[in-house]
């Protein structure tokens, strides 16, 4: 079980801010593949990974990172604060 959070247009495309996912995915990329296979809205959100960022337990990471021990995964576009 892993908490998956979505922000900004990723949240809008998928249609929810967070969900709990039952997964055995080894890496972030594997988790993305599982989500994309579910429904079109996930495929739309994850169509271009180069335009997405990922955080594992609230630290920026990358799509090849392992998920072992991770409790919270967040997907979002490049940040635009300031």
């Amino acid at each position, binding site marked *: 079980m892993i908490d998956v959070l979505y*922000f900004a247009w990723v949240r809008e495309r998928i249609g929810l801010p967070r969900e709990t996912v039952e997964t055995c995915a080894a890496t972030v990329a594997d988790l993305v593949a599982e989500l994309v296979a579910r429904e079109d809205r996930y495929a739309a959100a994850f169509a271009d990974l180069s335009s997405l960022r990922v955080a594992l337990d609230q630290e920026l990471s990358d799509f090849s990172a392992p998920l072992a021990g991770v409790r919270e995964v967040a997907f979002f576009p490049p*940040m*635009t*604060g300031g």
Partner: protein
Amino acid sequence: MRILVQAEAFDAGAELNAFSNATGGIGAIVTFTGIVRDSTQGDLAAMEIEHYPGMTERALTAIAAQASARWNLADCLVIHRYGRLLATDPIMMVATAAAHRTAAFAAAEFLMDYLKSRAPFWKKELTDTGAGWVQARDDDEAALTRWQS
């Protein structure tokens, strides 16, 4: 070091005075205040700022700690708002206090550069013609490389 992530408005002048009083006797204080800009068409109805509660505070604290160590700051302050803002509203401010101005200026620029690209905030502009997420700029990312030498 003080990190505030809040929906409420803040008074940049009052914050500067309080920051200045708390760091009495230091040689240099630099502040930057970011303001909501109108759209290029001049029709900005509102700006909505989304953030990632928890990660936002962690990221800002890490960035401020880096700046404090690198420039030996006496103190630093970061305030960033989220929620619905209007044109001319202050969005955020940073303040740095150091013995000399070069350190205070450099640390403030470092804080701003990292805050823009590494703190989880996203801006959405609402205008008369619709709504759109503000795109990250390539030069925001490029700005970080000058600090990595």
